[in-house]
């Protein structure tokens, strides 16, 4: 009887900890749960804050993490991954969200979920992962940071602010474009013809290097 009650209490605790109290995300998400989205939003604010620790703007050029739809980006990205990798990434997000059970933060509420901690606690938790003596904790941190940075700079506004937005490049039509349909299509759907291949001016192979700022602006 005691074991049963303990089990029920444990399950109830796990349910509350994993599911209850998370806000509804700003946009509907296909893959991520509310908990995962909340973690990503909190992590974005920790890695890419609006203000530094002295209350000044953290960057004059880049947008803060809160202004970037990281949960939305990650939801789209996960949708492109094979199942096993999708599961691994989602497990990684939840590992960080719930890690205070094993590696508590400092101060009051040290055992809270990551997304409910104060900004100072969140910074402390992330630093502890980054500098850990445990190799696997450091590896997990590197993986998380990679995902967050890729998502953060996946936002074109940030790349444009840095002058690093991808160039517009018109691909010349080459002979394989007449036989390879784009992915998912059938050969009958190929729109190019021999005339496209021969059209003057489209062959960028003889075009000059993409040098210089003029070409980009």
């Amino acid at each position, binding site marked *: 009887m005691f074991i049963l009650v303990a089990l029920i209490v444990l399950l109830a605790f796990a349910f509350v900890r994993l599911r209850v109290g998370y806000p509804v995300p700003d946009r509907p998400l296909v893959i991520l749960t509310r908990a995962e989205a909340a973690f990503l939003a909190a992590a974005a604010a920790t890695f890419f804050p609006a203000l530094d620790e002295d209350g000044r703007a953290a960057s004059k050029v880049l947008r803060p993490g809160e202004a970037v739809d990281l949960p939305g980006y990650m939801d789209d990205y996960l949708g492109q991954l094979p199942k096993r990798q999708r599961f*691994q990434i989602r497990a990684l997000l939840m590992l960080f969200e719930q890690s205070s059970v094993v590696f508590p933060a400092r101060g009051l509420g040290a055992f809270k979920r990551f997304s409910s901690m104060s900004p100072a606690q969140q910074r402390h938790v992330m630093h502890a992962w980054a500098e850990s003596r445990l190799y696997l904790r450091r590896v997990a941190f590197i993986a998380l940071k990679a995902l967050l940075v890729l998502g953060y700079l996946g936002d074109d506004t940030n790349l444009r602010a840095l002058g690093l937005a991808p160039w517009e490049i018109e691909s010349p039509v080459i002979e394989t474009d007449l036989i390879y349909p784009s992915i998912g299509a059938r050969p009958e759907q190929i729109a190019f013809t021999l005339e496209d291949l021969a059209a003057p001016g489209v062959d960028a192979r003889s075009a000059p290097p993409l040098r210089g700022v003029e070409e980009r602006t």
Partner: protein
Amino acid sequence: MRAEALSTREAEGEIRVFAQYERDFVEEADVVVVGSGPSGSVVTYELAKAGHRVLLVEEGPPFTPKDFRIDGNVSMARTMREGGLRSTTGTFMPVMQAICLGGASLINSAMCVRPPKFVFDDWSTRFDLERTTRGDLDPHYDAVGEFLGIAPTPDAVQGRRNMLFREGCDALGYSSEPVPRNVQGCRGSGECFTGCRPRAKQSMDISYIPEAMKLGARVLTSLQVQRVLGTRRRVWGVEGQVVEPFTGRASHAFRINARLVVLAAGCMATPVLLQRSGDLANESRQVGQNLQFHPGCAVAGVFPDEVDPLFGATQSYHSLDFLREGFKLETMWSSPAALAVRTPGMGADLLRHLGELPRTVIWDAIGSTHRSVGSVRARSEGLDPVIRWSLNEDDAKLMLRAVHVLTEIFFAAGAEKVMPGVHGLPEEITSTLGAQAIGDHPIRPRDLVMASSHVFCTTRMHGDAAKGVVDEIGRCHGFDNLFIADTGIFPRCPSVNPMYTVMALAHRQAQAIREQI
């Protein structure tokens, strides 16, 4: 010499894509080649040229510019196995293998480098490979080089970030040179890793494969080979399933009957296929063993002025000065987001570093880590491998030494600070004096942050059938008609980028097969 355009002649060859398979099917061919990377494509072309009925089978789809994605994350999810998230266990290291027509040539940086003579001398003496000297292979390199138009990268498309490497090497008296690449009319867009939109890179899908089709080769994409059919001495074909691009969902089954099978599925996939085929060609017990990499460590340097990093060929300057010591240095660029991943810090500190990206240059070192050997084996289901590999302590010292040299080159080129990216070292080093700390650092293998796309030796060549899987021409020991062509047959890591060598070996293999059939 290439033939006239595909669409202007009656091509005997054909390509089939996922949408065209409507039922289970059986095909016949003289030769079936599994995998359309650099090795498989060269074999296919050369055998088609000799008049054989060749069927090239590839699991991935053909990519058109419309299918490329500039976002590095998304591009990797589409073009690479396991969504670009494959890694080793033991010492953690991301490793990249492609899944697309053309194999990794679609998303590699087109560096074509011949290993120096001492690499082959070492191969021939250690592995009883008497006919694999540099002199033996030079005619094969020449033939591939001429076909693809391999030539040193011209200054006009180097861009500042590649030229800075040259300046740094010059200042320190290290040799450096423009990288020879398989490109025609490179425009310096620096986006080789996500697919060349200017269509300059001569990846296999737009070079060898269409030429092979003009000669009658048939190319079936979206086919995953799951088994090689054969007995302990002879094979007669392959079988598997049609798989949808990206989801990998299976639709129909297929079998291909052939007189000869060439496995060119890549160093990770070929051993798994053999294991899944009743442990074929494994009397030596070497299938899946001896795994080696060229691990790569990237180092970032920040310069006082903007370096216009978007412009310049992706990887087009390198130094071969340290090959004997065990590492090669090269320039590098990728999508800014992918490069920013190795930016140090968090919070305001991280944002400051990201703000420096327009002044940041990345160079990398690849190591010949011969002492670090691992293995590949099939998972309980599917064809993805379990990859065990650990970096040896002496090899870790080698990699740290390479990071040290790169740091010195950065300062010699005028960098104001360098970020070595090694756990335990300062995140930023601001002077040559500070760089000395790297040399004294007591490195542990797990302190290094590495990645690798150069994989070798899992079906290695050896003159002695008891010690290797294939002989000098890539024929499986004990078989007449089963060949392996991919980088798994390298007996050791080649010290330089492997694509040119795997194509030269494939060229030689095709000649031998031609004589045999």
